[in-house]
């Protein structure tokens, strides 16, 4: 028997839907085995990481709090990833978004009014977009690879945060801790809204899932994004400018990351400190791929990844696995989803081993 991969005539819709689920299930199995082998209770670690946050109602709020930024950033990244314009620096744009919001808060200390929070949000969105505009400029003007430039700007953003919270924006009443002054009530959003245990960011995320779904599937821009990624020459032929796509894809994903950052700051943390960056910008890359670069998929995968975040903490205290175990599970998931892509375009066939053809030499009849 031999195993053969055969190209399908059409990419399989069924496999498109099944492989992300299979990737999650396989991650659980592989994770359980590995943790068991290195001396932890593997199955229990998996149970705590993947199931406790779902079945324990008191964890839902925590899951939702983490799902909101993951979904928001993941949606933005779908645009770039679809167009094969790789923004690896959402974490940096998330930080700069939060910093921009905090900058407005810094300048509006002592002011009151309902205009302050919207202004902070606007600043966050613009800040994130402008941070992402740097790699766009470098790519379109000097052909600098956006993977490298956007990634490196994450560290620049982290240093910027470091500088501001230890320097000019440091809380004068903060006992010299590296943090900004706490936001005032006029600069804050409620932690949960509408009588639910869910943060405002989650509802914003729901809204944008719908917006992105319409944009990606129904508008000319969505068509352009899909064409640029699949066939750059066809995009030019269809009249879509590649440079415009680079600018817009990076700035949209930057704006979404900035929005996520400012919402997190203004509704959850209430101030910025050195611990603000939490890796959402990187995890959202997994979210976008696990969600098949589809807005509705991102809604689901963002929730799954949020569960692993919360579950990782649960498992840490319950099974004493290291704090990085959630990250290991997330990375395994990304590998599996990328690897399983092969099944969307190909099918596995089991074929009998080739019969060894008899190589006999027959003398030429006319010799």
């Amino acid at each position, binding site marked *: 028997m031999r195993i053969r991969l055969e190209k399908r005539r*059409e990419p399989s819709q069924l496999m498109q839907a099944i492989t992300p689920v299979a990737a999650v299930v396989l991650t659980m199995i592989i994770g359980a085995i590995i943790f068991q082998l290195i001396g932890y209770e593997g199955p229990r670690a998996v149970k705590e990481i993947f199931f406790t946050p779902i079945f324990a109602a008191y964890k839902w709020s925590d899951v939702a709090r983490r799902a909101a930024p993951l979904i928001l950033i993941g949606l933005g990244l779908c645009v770039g990833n679809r167009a094969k314009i790789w923004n690896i620096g959402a974490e940096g744009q998330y930080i700069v978004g939060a910093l921009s919001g905090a900058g407005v808060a810094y300048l509006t200390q002592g002011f009151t009014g309902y205009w302050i929070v919207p202004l902070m949000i606007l600043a966050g969105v613009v800040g994130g977009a402008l941070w992402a505009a740097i790699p766009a400029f470098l790519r379109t003007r000097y052909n600098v690879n956006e993977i490298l430039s956007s990634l490196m700007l994450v560290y620049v953003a982290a240093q910027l945060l470091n500088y501001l919270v230890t320097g000019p924006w440091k809380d004068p009443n903060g006992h010299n801790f590296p943090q900004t002054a706490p936001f005032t009530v006029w600069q804050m959003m409620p932690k949960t809204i509408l009588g639910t245990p869910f943060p405002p960011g989650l509802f914003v995320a729901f809204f944008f899932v719908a917006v992105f779904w319409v944009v990606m599937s129904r508008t000319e821009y969505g068509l352009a994004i899909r064409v640029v990624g699949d066939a750059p020459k*066809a995009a030019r032929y269809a009249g879509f400018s590649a440079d415009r796509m680079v600018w817009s894809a990076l700035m949209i994903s930057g704006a979404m990351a900035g929005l996520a950052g400012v919402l997190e700051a203004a509704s959850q943390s209430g101030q910025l400190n050195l611990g603000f960056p939490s890796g959402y910008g990187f995890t959202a890359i997994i979210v976008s791929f696990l969600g098949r670069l589809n807005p509705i998929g991102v809604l689901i995968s963002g929730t799954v990844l949020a569960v692993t975040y919360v579950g990782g903490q649960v498992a840490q205290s319950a099974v004493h696995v290291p704090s990085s175990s959630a990250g290991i599970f997330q990375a395994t998931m990304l590998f599996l989803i990328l690897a399983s892509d092969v099944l969307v375009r190909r099918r596995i066939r089991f074929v009998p081993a080739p019969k060894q053809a008899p190589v006999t030499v027959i003398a030429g009849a*006319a010799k």
Partner: protein
Amino acid sequence: MAVSSEVAKRRAGDPPRLEMMGITKQFPGVLANDNISFSVKPGEIHALLGENGAGKSTLVKMIYGIMAPDQGQILWNGELVKVSNPRAARKLGIGMVFQHFSLFEALTVLENIALGLDSKISQRDLEKEIRRVLDLYGLKLDPQRIVSTLSVGERQRIEIVRALLLDPRLLIMDEPTSVLTPQEVEQLFETLRKLAAGGCSILYISHKLHEIIALCDTATILRGGRLVATCDPKEETPKSMAELMIGANLKEIARPAGRGFGPEKFSARGLSLPKHGDFGVALHDISFSVRAGEILGVAGVAGNGQNEFMEALSGERVALNAAAVRLDGIDIGRLGPTQRRALGLCAVPEERNGHAAVADFTLADNSSLTARRRMGFMQGGLISFSRVAAYAERVIKGYSVKALGHYSTAGSLSGGNLQKFIMGREILQEPTALVCSQPTWGVDAGAAGAIRQAIVDLAGRGCAVVVVSQDLDELLEFCDSLVVINLGRLSRVMKVGDVSIDEIGLLMGGVHGDPKATAEMTEQLHAHSA
């Protein structure tokens, strides 16, 4: 005389050089070769004739060891052999010249040949060997030239020399003339005849019937994976062989007699573009004019600026000044593809997958690529699914595209069907001017006829059409006027009917890279016409 009769006797007595016995090859969903048997005698030039998809390529890939047959046997000089890979094939004495060359543009001829050799040999010895082969067959090629500076004809000679260095007993030539000028074709035939006279058998794959009649001793005709006939081409007419190949009667293109042309619709004046990238071609001072109802053919050997010409007309690259391209009295030189399309200029580039269409997209989405504005798919800023689907279905029905429906992906269609869809998508937009490149390239004869008819009909409705093609016969068949593109320049416009093939061949570059031979031929031509 004495020698040739002796050769004939030897040929009759020897076992065939190559004998295929009951070769069958199955691919998912298609039986590519169905129980095919034929033989090639020593020193015979044997044509393998068939439409695209008839199974010619699959068959020769099995001879050259790229694929293994599912069933059947291959006999080499009367002995049963199993050709497991191309290296084994070369060891037996089988050489192959592919339609698409595998050459490194930045390396010299010598380096390219050295890279392809199975055995290690010093550059000096190799150069000596190459020069010997070149002399023996009267081929002109400088081993020290960089490949990027060579014409396609010269590049093909590299591949031929590469094969000849191994002293093959069977040379497989896959569609060798599709990239050559008529003069270069004649030179190639000379070489092949010399080779055959030396006892090397040649398996010549083509669908150009007059070439087969001029060159080959025997023709094996394939259709839909089966062998339908073996004949002596000298005793057949192009029409009779074409009908064997297609399995039906050939349809003539219907053209309304005594058509007149309307006013000028589409023109270029002094259109120049710098070259793009290291291996691009610059356009120099391109000027032409097409009237309503007129079909202008652009002939030329591949790589002479056809792609750049297409991009400059479609708007994928904009001109330096607006007046360089004019459509219906409007300067459109500085406009992009979307704006040009809105004004009535549609285009079909040469490459189907990845340029004219996206393989992973449905036919509906592929319709949106170019028809979204002209056909009113946009509804309040959103693309209307129902309108797109309806248009895609209209194209499918109107151009008998074999597809399940508007939800089929472009990649699931055969080349001919996808080309029909693409042409239909543009033609149904009723453009003022249509520019298309290689509209029937790699398309079976039935589909090609339908596509040419559709173009003629479109012109009949008053559209100005520009067709870029490397198939000169095709252009002569349905164009009204003709220009030749060579090194990014256009020749003067000629009326089809007034031009001679020889003259077109010279305009196409004569014998590429050989000014002396070109000069001689020009002289002959002038003497002839005087």
